[in-house]
């Protein structure tokens, strides 16, 4: 019997296979399917170029945020170096594309793999360090990578930056926001699906076990260090992949954006979206990207108001202030993040229209 319900009101599962499903109901699955079809068929053709640009940025950020969520939210290893890993991915793709002339379909995954290797190297301290000591070691990673990117002139061209060729499939060039929209969001859908699958298999369970009680995890036969490294590798793969997409999208890259601030933004996405929740990372990426854009727009607006100009006030710091304030409020008011708000919204549809 196929049950079709909006949201089940109890546990009606009939065999163990049903418990392995991602979606509790067919309704959920169909909804997501419809949403994706609509999204791909409609969004790129109706929204403005600026909106499309923002959507693309959200997509890229979401891939990186999913990766970080695997590391922080699931494995419990706080990393302050995700921004740098994003940069490693961007530079790896740029160098592979310009020096070796790899096509983007090879350069992007290869950049992800290179970043995963770098991530594993910076994950090595996790074998001995715990909690805050590890956090600071990843902070060290952030600074060391930043330094290398800037000062390894022969490879990265230092502060000059690198310009990437446009990605090509045989003869057809992927250029412009619309083409990138498809590249980015198809990647996002795939990467999300991989992440969800990893998390419901033995690997994801092992990560959670390490987060919750590493000694017991070891007692269950889980080689902790190897899994921590794996988590660092997966997370950096996502960061590197996103960074590579970003590099192609931006066409030309410099070392500037990959600073601690970017790492902090990624963490903010993960927390505001919801720790240990994969859709949450997408929500978080959306929220933070939109917030940044909004604040940029708003402070720009303020700067042009007559009296502000006449007083010579600089409104730009307001952006930083508000950004901080939003994070603080979010943590204080809904520490479980947007994913929790989404869950609450959905569960009020339980038994809809006859909610109790």
């Amino acid at each position, binding site marked *: 019997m196929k049950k079709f319900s909006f949201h089940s009101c109890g546990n009606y599962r009939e065999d163990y*296979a049903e418990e392995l499903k991602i979606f509790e109901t067919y309704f959920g699955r169909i909804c997501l399917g419809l949403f994706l079809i609509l999204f791909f068929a409609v969004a790129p053709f109706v929204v403005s170029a600026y909106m499309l640009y923002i959507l693309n940025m959200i997509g890229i950020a979401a891939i990186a945020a999913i990766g970080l969520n695997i590391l922080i939210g699931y494995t419990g290893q706080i990393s302050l170096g995700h921004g740098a890993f994003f940069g490693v991915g961007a530079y790896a793709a740029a160098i592979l594309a310009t020096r070796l002339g790899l096509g983007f379909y090879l350069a992007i995954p290869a950049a992800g793999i290179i970043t995963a290797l770098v991530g594993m190297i910076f994950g090595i301290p996790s074998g001995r360090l715990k909690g805050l000591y590890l956090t600071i070691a990843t902070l060290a990673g952030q600074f060391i990578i930043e330094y290398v990117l800037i000062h390894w002139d022969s490879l990265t061209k230092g502060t000059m930056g690198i310009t990437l060729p446009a990605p090509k499939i045989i003869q057809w060039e992927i250029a412009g926001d619309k083409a990138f929209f498809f590249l980015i969001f198809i990647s996002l859908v795939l990467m999300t699906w991989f992440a969800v699958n*990893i998390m419901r*298999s*033995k690997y994801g369970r092992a990560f959670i076990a390490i987060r919750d*009680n590493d000694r017991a995890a070891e007692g269950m036969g*889980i080689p902790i260090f190897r899994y921590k490294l794996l988590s660092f590798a997966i997370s950096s793969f996502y960061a590197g992949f996103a960074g590579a997409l970003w590099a192609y999208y931006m066409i030309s890259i410099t070392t500037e954006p990959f600073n601690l601030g970017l790492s902090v933004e990624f963490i903010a996405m993960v927390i505001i979206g919801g720790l240990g929740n994969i859709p949450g990372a997408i929500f978080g990426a959306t929220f933070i990207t939109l917030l940044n854009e909004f604040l940029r727009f708003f402070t720009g607006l303020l700067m042009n108001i007559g009296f502000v100009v006449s007083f010579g006030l600089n409104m730009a710091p307001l952006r930083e202030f508000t950004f901080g304030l939003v994070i603080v409020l979010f943590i204080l008011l809904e520490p479980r993040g947007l994913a929790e708000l989404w869950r609450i919204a959905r569960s009020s549809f339980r038994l809809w229209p006859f909610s109790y």
Partner: protein
Amino acid sequence: MKAFRSRPSIMISRREENKKAELEIKSLRLTFGGVTAVKDVDLNVHTGELMAIIGPNGAGKTSLLNCITGFYRPQKGRITFNGTDITDLHTHQLVDVGIGRTFQNIELFPGMTVLANMTLARHIHCHYSFIHSCLFSPSVKKEEIRHRQILEEIIDFLEMQSIRKKTVGSLPYGMMKRVELGRALALEPKLLILDEPFAGMNLEEKEDMVRFLLELNQRWGLTMILVEHDMSIVMNISKRIMVLNFGEKIGEGTAEEISGHPEVIRAYLGDSGIL
């Protein structure tokens, strides 16, 4: 018929070679920072035995267990299991070798459900690759379902059906101990090490636990090492008892021999005898 269904087939169908559990410890010594926690202890555990280790708090019982299960590294001595040297193996490798354990101060994952806790113990029995798990291929699904069936058998055996979806942190203490046993069984160990499984339990819970342990030991031939302070249980169910004091073995023998052993009475049991 409940009685038949409640026997995990993984345990029943264990082949003889999977039951084999010969543990041999030779002059084991463990020191931390000047204190000798375990002092040249020898111990042999044979297949099918239920061996108890008793002794005052701080006598080195848990330290000894931690050496066997790889949490501590002894300075001297050898531990072999079924003929292989396991002294230098890591904790997670020992699980592969077939040694499972429960902990003195429950080490469950309090935020997870009972089922999720037990599923973790199937980790070493999950054989699919990383790529397969990324795609969640049908083979992964099939394997996951098989593990679930095994877990359900253990849940049935330990009479935990009603709590399988409950968060472990919300369970009463005695239940948590039972979940921990269930999780250790899900590892399919050849040797099960139990560190104070009865502590903090009331009589009823103790009786249940004794019933499970005896069945595991007698009917399924699971070899066990038991560390416990409740003498009435230890004396009743264990075949052999070793007594530790200040890291040294001060006695070994059957329950009768130990309860009459003058040094054991002085150091551990006290003059009022069995509590």
